[in-house]
């Protein structure tokens, strides 16, 4: 096989988008993924929420960015946006970090549409625990539609895609990086973009001192058959240790996630250097649905009728030091010994557009 100009490791949403972007500049771009389909891991196992700002009443900047990113996401991936439901945001009484007046002012300030929920919608909530309910505009994404769209674009732009292909290790080499695959074959691309999210530090060369600090979380997204009253509805309870229920378009179900119960365990890579994040997924842990639904139905009693279909487990990875807030920055890490190895830790899908500028700058400087 001929060495590509650029190799992208990891066929998640970020890897696919980046490969398509790189194809404008390079003649041969190769995208590899160890799974047997694209967008099968963290891009799939999440709430499928396309943030429109409402989630960040304590950070105007993050909220404003989300809103502009969503607009661009809609333009770029129209088929991936799922709009066919109404979204309610409820402000919890007592334990919430924002009051309803704060939330209303905040929504007005970022220009996000917000209207008080109607009588029928309000009646879904227990008044003792919920202070106010609003109807908002915040869509979900359909990961299956995104996969179809991106596969088509990869094909159209002429990116080579190799699935079920695992990278064993990367060695610094003159002019680029030597990539050794698990089957023993090797390639020598000029540029390597490591978009492997939770496995970000697994493939890059030692010593760990050169690795970016990461925090991993084993998370559970419970897929449920919602009660009839919630079928075309999403509910997000703000702002603290609460829950959300949203359509999960690719499966025709709803996702139930809970701030307290969705993360099963969490560790920093520095504290447990030998632990491969993926090894935690086998065998799959016992579901916490029982915890999630019991807490959630205190706020929304009809949720007692939700039926647990199955749970998706995966690793969520964020840079060390960003656990405290929701800003979820993208990590962009250029290796100090092999400067043509770029590791990118993606975050929310709609942040993808911020990566392109960085990549272009790096390539122009070289």
């Amino acid at each position: 096989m001929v060495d590509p100009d650029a190799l992208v490791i990891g066929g998640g949403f970020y890897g696919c988008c980046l490969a398509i972007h790189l194809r404008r500049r390079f003649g041969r771009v190769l995208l590899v993924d160890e799974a047997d389909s694209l967008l099968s891991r963290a891009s799939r196992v999440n709430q499928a929420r396309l943030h429109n700002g409402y989630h960040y009443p304590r950070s105007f900047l993050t909220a404003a960015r989300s809103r502009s990113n969503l607009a661009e996401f809609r333009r770029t991936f129209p088929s991936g946006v799922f709009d066919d439901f109404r979204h309610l945001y409820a402000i919890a009484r007592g334990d919430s970090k924002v009051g309803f007046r704060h939330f209303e002012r905040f929504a007005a300030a970022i220009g996000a549409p917000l209207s008080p929920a109607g009588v029928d919608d309000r009646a879904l909530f227990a008044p003792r625990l919920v202070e106010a309910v609003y109807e908002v505009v915040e869509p979900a994404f359909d990961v299956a539609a995104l996969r179809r769209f991106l596969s088509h674009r990869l094909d159209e732009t002429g990116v080579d895609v190799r699935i079920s292909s695992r990278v064993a290790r990367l060695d610094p080499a003159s002019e680029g990086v030597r990539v050794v695959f698990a089957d023993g074959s090797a390639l020598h691309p000029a540029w390597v973009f490591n978009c492997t999210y939770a496995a970000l530090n697994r493939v890059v060369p030692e010593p760990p001192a050169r690795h970016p600090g990461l925090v991993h979380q084993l998370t559970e997204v419970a897929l449920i058959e919602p009660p009839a009253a919630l079928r075309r509805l999403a509910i997000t309870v703000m702002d603290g240790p609460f829950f959300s229920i949203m359509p999960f378009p690719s499966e025709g179900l709803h996702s139930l996630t809970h701030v307290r119960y969705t993360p099963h365990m969490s560790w920093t890579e520095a504290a447990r250097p030998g632990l491969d994040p993926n090894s935690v997924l086998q065998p799959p842990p016992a579901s916490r649905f029982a915890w999630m639904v019991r807490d959630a139905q205190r706020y929304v009693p009809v949720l007692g009728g939700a039926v647990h279909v199955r749970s998706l487990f995966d690793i969520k990875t964020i840079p060390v030091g960003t656990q405290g807030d929701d800003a979820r920055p993208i990590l962009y890490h250029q290796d100090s010994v092999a400067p043509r190895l770029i590791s990118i830790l993606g975050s929310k899908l709609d942040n993808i557009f911020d990566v392109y500028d960085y990549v272009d700058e790096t390539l122009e400087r070289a």
Partner: protein
Amino acid sequence: MRTRDIFVSVVMRVRDAEATVGAALTRLSAVMDAAFGYYEIIIVDDASTDATRAVIAEVQAHARNIQMYALARRKGDNIALTAGLDHAIGDMVVMLDPLLDPPELIPQMVERALEGVDIVYALPRERLASRGLAHMAVRGFVAGLSRLNNVDAPQAMSNYRLLNRTVLNYMLEAVDRHRSLMFLPALSGYPYATLEYDRLPGRPAGGHYSGERVTKAMDLLFSTSARPLRIITLLSLGISVLSLVYALYSVLIFVVRDDIAKGWTSLSLQISGLFFLVCIILAVMSEYILQILEATTHHPRYHIAAQRHSSTMDIARTRNVIATHEARSANDAAASQPVLQQAIGDGGQVKPPRRDQAKL
């Protein structure tokens, strides 16, 4: 085992117990893990000033399903436990003192509850039998409170008890639930069972501050029952009647006697008149306060423990037939069941019944 499918929450309060809370929590966690598939342990730290929170965090690093809520200010037993109960998500909730109450009893309590009772009280044996002053005072107080409120409750009750979700929801509806917390399950009226147990040697995990017991007793007395206020109304009315009698007596003396001191009659009338007025005002006001109390505490007027509908049909079975005159006269003799007739005015046009309708 049935208990494995029940979600049990354990709620407790601790304060300044760094030396003991770690072992107690580990022991509780082991019991819960062995007995239940779904559970949570809620521990409310009542603004400890020592390393209690750090000790709890250490246990949390290896034991699952433990949640800690730390209060910003010391609030005492009742408010801390209320905070815990407010956050509990279980189908059943167990309240206990981690240093006094052995957790090994919890599976038994759940078993008892599954037999169909809503409340299970664990009674400390020492309190049941003891002739000690403190124990007798507790029993006497609970007995008095039960009589005042006309409910049934075990005299030797402690904080260690199990409540199911129905009882907990009843308690959560009362805005002043922290005052009457210990007695609210009894007030709910739901059926209960009791178990006996031996307390662990030691001191309560929360400690007491001076006068706490008296404050708690007063809270319980006045928050569970409005009878004291009713008694005030009656007392005021009684005194106002007496004042009136006294005023009449003064006038009578003034008329029949002429050796009374100067000014006695006017002073007596003034005093009795004012007392009459003040007592009437008090009586009226206390009645209104009673109403305000009822409105603001949101104590549910009643709770329906169960409901059941009669299982026969509401309406006797009738034939859905409109009979014309001819048809009726023809069928009159044969009709063994009542036939529903529709008023059609004086001989108005009625379509003959369709075959399938008439068949029934």
